[in-house]
């Protein structure tokens, strides 16, 4: 995938030459999206912000290996996604309620309320949260972040077929749970 933004390519080249301040251009451009991706996985504003910060710092530390011709967005997206999935693994390991399938809403913090814009939104959010983990992740990226299959596959490291399969199962379950929503 080539970088079709010449300004971004120039900024990346400057950062690779040691211009740390130029990195701010990339941070400003991608930070909201990176936080949103992290939040979609960890569902906690504080953790999402920390993960976004960590992702940008790691990307900067490895910017020398990054090909200037590639777009920065998918790369930083993959970094934050991996970090967020690590957090989820960590949570699963140490939280019994995760293993026992306890209502996920119990681990939301107050800041999550920010994203709940209305009743329909609340119902959709609850339905997505009830899905098994990978279906939930893929459904959230597709429905909430409006990503296409290929983008989700690139971000998560799953194959396109696996993404389609998760999404197909997720859609079936969501249709069942939310059938009355658009009658």
């Amino acid at each position, binding site marked *: 995938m080539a970088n079709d933004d010449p300004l971004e390519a120039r900024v990346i080249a400057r950062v690779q030459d*040691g211009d*740390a*301040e130029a*990195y*701010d251009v990339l*941070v*400003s451009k991608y*930070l*909201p999206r990176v*936080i*949103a991706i992290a*939040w*979609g996985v960890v569902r906690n*504003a504080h953790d*999402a*912000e920390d993960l*976004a*910060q960590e992702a*940008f*710092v790691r990307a*900067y*530390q490895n910017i020398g290996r990054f090909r200037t011709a590639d777009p920065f967005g998918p790369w930083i997206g993959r970094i934050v996604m991996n970090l967020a999935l690590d957090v989820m693994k960590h949570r699963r390991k140490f939280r019994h309620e995760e293993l026992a399938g306890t209502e996920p809403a119990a681990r939301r913090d107050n800041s999550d309320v*920010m*994203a*709940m*814009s*209305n009743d*329909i*939104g609340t119902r*959709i*959010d609850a339905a*997505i949260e009830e899905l098994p983990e990978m279906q939930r992740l893929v459904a959230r990226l*597709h*429905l*909430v*972040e*409006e990503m296409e299959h290929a983008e989700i596959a690139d971000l998560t490291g799953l194959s396109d077929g696996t993404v389609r399969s998760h999404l197909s199962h997720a*859609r079936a379950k*969501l*249709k069942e749970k*939310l059938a009355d*929503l*658009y009658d």
Partner: protein
Amino acid sequence: MTDDEKFFERLRGDAASLRYRADDATLARIGARIQEQIAPNATLAELLASWFRPLAAGLAAIALAAAIGLTLNTNDSTFGEQQVEIVMGGDTYLVGD
């Protein structure tokens, strides 16, 4: 478009409102924290510059003072070596040295 597709189109439209949006203050705060973390080399360079700048200025002042002092001293010595001719009553006297 099938009913199924319509359903998911509408679902996707409504689900987009669930996207988490960090406010401007949060974005600025995280951006500043990232800059803090990635600029240790620049900070070190600035630290060294802040140490060496007054030192260099002090050394330059001392060198300047020494140069001025030497110049004055040299001029004084030159003046002291000059002889002044005084003519009095037809006789010429040399003063100095």
